[in-house]
C-alpha cells in the first residue's frame, strides 16, 4: 500500500470532501449541486469552471441521483476507478446512516396514535409532492404535440394494460430516437436544444425534474 502514497492521499481527500457534502443537504440530490461545485471548483481546484457544467450534464443523463453521479464522475476524473468508488462511498455514507437511524426511529413510533394522525395528513401531502414532481417534469417533457401524446399514452397503458415501467422506459428511449429520425426524414423541425438553454436552476433544484 505504501508504494503509492500520493494516490492514497488523493483518495482520502476525495473521500473526505464528498463525506462533508453528504449530510448537509435535504430533499434530493439537486440540493448538493451548488455545494459540490463550491468544493471541487473553488476550494480544491480539482475541476475547471468550464468543465463542471459538462460533468453535471453527464451526471444528469446517466441513471441515478445527480449528486451521487457527479461525485462518482469527479472521483473518476481525479483518480480513476478507485477515485470513483472513494467519492461514491464518501457521498453516500453519512446519508446512509441518517436514513437508517430515521427508519429505526420511525419503525419504533409508527404505531403511536399521534404519529398515525400525523401520517394521515402527510400521505395527502406526499400525493401533492408527486403531483408537483409530475408538473415540473411535465414542463420539460411536453414540448410539442408528440410528447403530450406520449405522456397520455403512458398513463393509459399503465392504467389499462399495465406493462412493466422498465419496459416502458426502454421503449420510450427507442421511441424518441425513432420519432426524431422520422421527423427529420419528413423535413419537420424538431427542437431538442431546450435542455442546453436551461442547464441548472439552483433555486429550484430539489425535485428530480431535471432528467
Amino acid at each position, binding site marked *: 500500500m505504501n508504494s503509492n502514497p500520493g494516490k492514497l492521499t488523493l483518495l482520502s481527500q476525495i473521500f473526505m470532501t464528498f463525506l462533508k457534502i*453528504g449530510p*448537509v443537504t*435535504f*430533499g434530493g*440530490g439537486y440540493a448538493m449541486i451548488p455545494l459540490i461545485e463550491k468544493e471541487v471548483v473553488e476550494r480544491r481546484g480539482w475541476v475547471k469552471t468550464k468543465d463542471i457544467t*459538462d460533468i453535471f450534464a*453527464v*451526471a*444528469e*443523463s*446517466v*441513471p*441515478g*441521483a445527480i*449528486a451521487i453521479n457527479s461525485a462518482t*464522475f469527479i472521483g473518476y476524473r481525479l483518480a480513476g476507478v478507485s477515485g470513483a468508488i472513494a467519492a461514491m462511498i464518501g457521498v453516500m455514507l453519512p446519508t*446512509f446512516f*441518517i*436514513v437508517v437511524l430515521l*427508519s429505526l426511529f420511525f419503525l419504533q413510533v*409508527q404505531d403511536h396514535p399521534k404519529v*398515525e394522525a400525523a*401520517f394521515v395528513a*402527510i*400521505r*395527502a*401531502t*406526499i*400525493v*401533492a*409532492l*408527486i403531483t*408537483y414532481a*409530475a*408538473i415540473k*417534469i411535465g414542463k420539460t*417533457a411536453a414540448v410539442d404535440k408528440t*410528447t403530450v401524446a*406520449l*405522456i397520455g*399514452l*403512458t*398513463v393509459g*397503458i*399503465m*392504467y389499462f394494460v399495465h406493462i412493466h*415501467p422498465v419496459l416502458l*422506459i*426502454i421503449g*420510450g*428511449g427507442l421511441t*424518441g*430516437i425513432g*420519432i426524431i429520425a422520422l421527423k427529420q426524414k419528413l423535413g419537420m423541425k424538431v427542437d*431538442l436544444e431546450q435542455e442546453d438553454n436551461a442547464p441548472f436552476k439552483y433555486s429550484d433544484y*430539489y*425535485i428530480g*425534474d*431535471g*432528467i
Partner: protein
Amino acid sequence: MLWDLFITFFMIGFVSFGGGYAMIPLIQEEIVHNHGWMTAQEFTDVIAVAGMSPGPIATNTAIFIGYNQMGLTGAVLSALGMILPSLMIILAIGAIFYKIQKSMMVKSAFYGLRSIITGLIVYAAILFAVNNGLVSSISWHTFSLILIFGLSLLALLRYRIHPVYVIVMSGLVGVTVYG
C-alpha cells in the same frame, strides 16, 4: 430475500433516469405490485420519511425499504443495488467518450424518455391518490384530505416552500385534526 432486494434495486438503478421522484413509480411497481413487500400506504409513509432525510430521495427510499425488510444488511445491499448501475455506466462513459450527452442520438432518446417518465409519475400520482383515500366516498374525511392535498400543492407550486417543511407542517396539521 437479500439477493431479491439487491437485484430489484439493481434493475431499478439501471433505468432510473431523472432521479428524485421520477423513480417512485418504478420502486412502487416492484415493491408493492410485484413483490408485495409492503402495502401502498406503507410505501407512502416510506417516501415521507425518505423525503425528510437528507440526500437523494430514491436512494433513501431504497435504504429504508432494505432496512425495513432485512435490517442493516438489507439496507446496505439495497443501496449498493441502486448505485452500482450508475457507477458502472459512469466508468464506461468516462472511459469511452465523455461528451456523450451532446450527441443527437442521446438527445432523441431523452425526448422520448422524458415523456414516458412524466406519464409514469402522473400514473403514480393517481395511484397514490386512490390508495390514500383521496378519491373514496364523499365524506368530511375525504374532503379534509383533498384540502390538505390542495394546500400542500399550493405551498410547493406557488410559494415554493421546501418539501421538508411542507411535510412537517402537514404532520402538525394531522396531529391537530386527526389526533
